């Protein structure tokens, strides 16, 4: 008997199953983009066909980190910037889980930037949602890594002298095999992209533009979106790194000039996931490691059998 009967359960899944009896209004401001992420994620789950109990959502902290409170699945609300290392190890211990990591732009591109680069490089089979509102929200409105140059805040009173992070390009050069950008005000596209990201067998990075009505009233998240897949103006091959890179740079340049380009930017279906790579080198078991602890018949090897070299 499996110890994890929730995994692989095939049945009709209702998005309401992902709603715990706790209200997001408790911490999210009215009009916050985070509601859009939560809604899109709940809508995507039935499409992907995963139940709440076979899903692990790992979040950082801040407003975005509260996603795991309002989304009913197994959850891990970790610490600022550390969602990815927690999530990727959980995936390695039990690859049968649907693992999603989420955090904000300060959390994911600032303090967690190193983990972002390395998780993408390894191409773990997981989805990473970054709530990108170009501001630190819960700490009351400081400049974030995606705030535009010149952005004024209490911590940068004379305007930020820094160029903003380019999250799409950063994900691509680091090795993410799926890169997309969507927005809270574009629920249909968001749902489709999240579904595709979860179904993708590799590291899927979704830069999710979320408006912050309290601290970032000027942000461009309110302007109309252009879906690069729907627009005749943009024709590129999302499986080609070069074309994808060029398109990402266009989108990243345009963002701070008032033109918001969203959609899928890169999708490499051929690159093996980290798990596959590691299994190929013999560094990772075929069966989920976590299952073994519940298997009474498993024969555990003893260190005593390793002593030959010490005699």
């Amino acid at each position, binding site marked *: 008997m499996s110890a994890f009967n929730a995994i692989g359960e095939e049945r009709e899944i209702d998005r309401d199953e992902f709603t715990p009896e706790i209200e997001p209004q408790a911490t999210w401001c009215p009009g916050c983009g985070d509601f859009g992420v939560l809604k899109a994620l709940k809508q995507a789950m039935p499409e992907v066909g995963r139940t709440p*109990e076979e899903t692990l959502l790992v979040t950082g902290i801040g407003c975005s980190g509260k996603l795991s409170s309002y989304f009913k*699945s197994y*959850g*891990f609300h970790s610490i600022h910037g*550390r969602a990815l*290392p927690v999530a990727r190890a959980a995936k390695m211990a039990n690859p049968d889980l649907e693992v999603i990591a989420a955090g904000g732009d300060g959390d994911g591109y600032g303090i967690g930037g190193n983990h972002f680069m390395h998780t993408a490089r390894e191409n773990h089979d997981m989805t990473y949602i970054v709530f990108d509102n170009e501001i630190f929200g819960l700490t009351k409105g400081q400049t974030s890594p995606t705030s535009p140059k010149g952005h004024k805040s209490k911590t940068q009173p004379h305007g930020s002298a820094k160029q903003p992070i380019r999250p799409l390009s950063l994900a691509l050069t680091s090795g993410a095999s799926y890169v997309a950008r969507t927005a809270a005000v574009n629920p249909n596209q968001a749902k489709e992209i999240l579904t595709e990201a979860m179904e993708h067998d590799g590291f899927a990075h979704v830069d999710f533009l979320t408006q912050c009505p309290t601290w970032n009233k000027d942000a461009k998240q309110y302007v109309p979106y252009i879906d690069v897949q729907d627009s005749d103006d943009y024709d590129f091959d999302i499986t080609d790194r070069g074309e994808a890179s060029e398109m990402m740079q266009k989108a990243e340049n345009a963002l701070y000039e008032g033109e918001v380009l969203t959609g899928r930017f890169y999708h490499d279906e051929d690159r093996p996931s980290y798990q596959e790579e590691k299994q190929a080198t013999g560094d990772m078991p075929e069966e989920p490691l976590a299952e073994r602890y519940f298997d009474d018949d498993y024969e555990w090897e003893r260190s005593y059998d390793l002593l030959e070299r010490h005699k």
Partner: protein
Amino acid sequence: MTDDELIWRIAGGSGDGIDSTSQNFAKALMRSGLNVFTHRHYPSRIRGGHTYVEIRAKDEPVKSRGDNYNFLLALGDSFARNPQEEAYYGNEEIKPLTENLDELREGGVIVYDSGLLDASEIENFDERAEENDWHVYDLDLRGLAKEHGREVMRNTAGVGATAALLDMDLEHIKGLMSDAMSGDVLEANIQILEEAYESVNEDYEHTHDLRAPTGTQDEEQVLVSGSHGIAYGSLDEGCRFISGYPMTPWTDVFTIMTQHLPEMGGISEQVEDEIAAASLAIGASHAGAKAMSGSSGGGFALMSEPLGLAEMTETPIVLVESMRAGGSTGMPTKPEQGDLEHVLYTSQGDSNRVVFAPGDAAECYRQTRKAFEIAYEYQIPSIVIYDQKLSGGHQTVPEEVFDQEPNPDIGSVTTEQDLEEAVQEAGRFKRYMYDDEGERGGVSPRSIPGQKGGNFLASGNEHNEVGHISEDPDNRVLQMNRRMSKLESIRDELAENADHQTVYGPEDAEYGILSWGSTKGVVEEAVDVLNEQGHSVKAMNVSDMMPFAKDEVTAFLESVDEALVVEMNATAQFRRHVQGQLGRFGEKLYSLLKYDGNPFEPREVVSGFESRIGGEADLSQYNVRIESATGD
């Protein structure tokens, strides 16, 4: 001290194969039925620079490096001849001789490689040799090695010469060589070994008395380091996930685990930094694996944040802290016991973790097993703290220490059947259920992602019973009390089932020596010497740092008039911990501190004791300091 022991020192340059040669020679001595203890001294450099390994072999148990040494094999530093290196580091060619002479005992033997070293360059060498009755043999080991094989094989020539001078049988050495090598390499090495052996016997008159001691040990022994103890203890507890970032000396455990995990169906991950390393261990454990990570001082500092996360989310993990001399990056390859307070108190808030400090390789094995058992049973992080000396030094341990059953039990985890009946609230499992009556020892039921009916939220924020973030004052107090009460339950369990504190010497002794971690062996040897000299002394080595072994240490300190607390740091961290935990004994305690990068020798502990009790010993020749406790 006495000549019933051999303390063989092999000296040369880092990267010259000193370590592997000494390993083999130590094993050969073990195979002849002796007890062995090794001590590694090396610089933080890859190639060149003075390095030595000391092997102490004796028929009786050996617990420390001993006092000084009696046989020097000076091989020369082949990298010192590189002109570029010379410009940078100066001429180090003769260091294998000059750096080691001060500690060579009277009547000792010196074999040096005349192919690389020129003793005439050393000031007063002949006079010193005569004065100290040193017996000097100059052999062209390099030339011999080149003649029959390659220059690097001069180590083998040195071992052959050693065996001849000590009247040893070559069979054990040959056996070990055939285990490790084959083909032409083996053939060349055997030839060099035999040539060196024979030429010493034929061409040199043996003027010295030193011989290899006769070994009578018939119990099966293995030669392992403390790091092997920790790694093997982890494997036997079913640990199959390790994540780490390289840092000396923690890398020892990390590499041993990595060597074995894939073939045992486990996973080893080298990651971007130590914050990630500890976070990965948390993620793997949360998902249902037995997981560990670790580091040394500076790397462990980065783990402070995830350590707190593991405490708050009650995710079991085991962290290893392998101390080296600090602060900051300190002295990477030198031992110290300076991270005790760092490990006990790091991380924010009222923290709650278990800390064990094993004293030798066998204890490394046992205490690591206990660390896993406690971590998974009580859903709390455990830390095993030890140091560079215990990490890399090898010692003979009875094979039976490792002849134990594996324990893959994942601890206090709820099954799916139980989950069907478990208490839920708002559609979520009460993962952090209050322990109102204290009947579960502070432990709440735990589910693993993928289990039906077990969904909950793990959070580093204060949370209610199902894991939702809560700032409710009543909930806060209930959750804090439950988490904090675990330490008392663990203390009770340890007092009942674990015998981690060791007492050595006559029970009714007048004075005591208190130590922790790796100073155990050297203190026990000092106790023997002191009692032989007419003092009345016993020792206690403490391993359970948190929860602290209050009752055992109290009983020990109550039974003696005064106690010397021996530790390798400058600020008496352990003594202050004892005073803090017990709230008394200040008037009875005084410290013997050493923090020069070298481990204690028995004579330093003996003199430290005598300087206080007899008021006579001269400590000025040692890098040690006596300090009285404050308060009462």
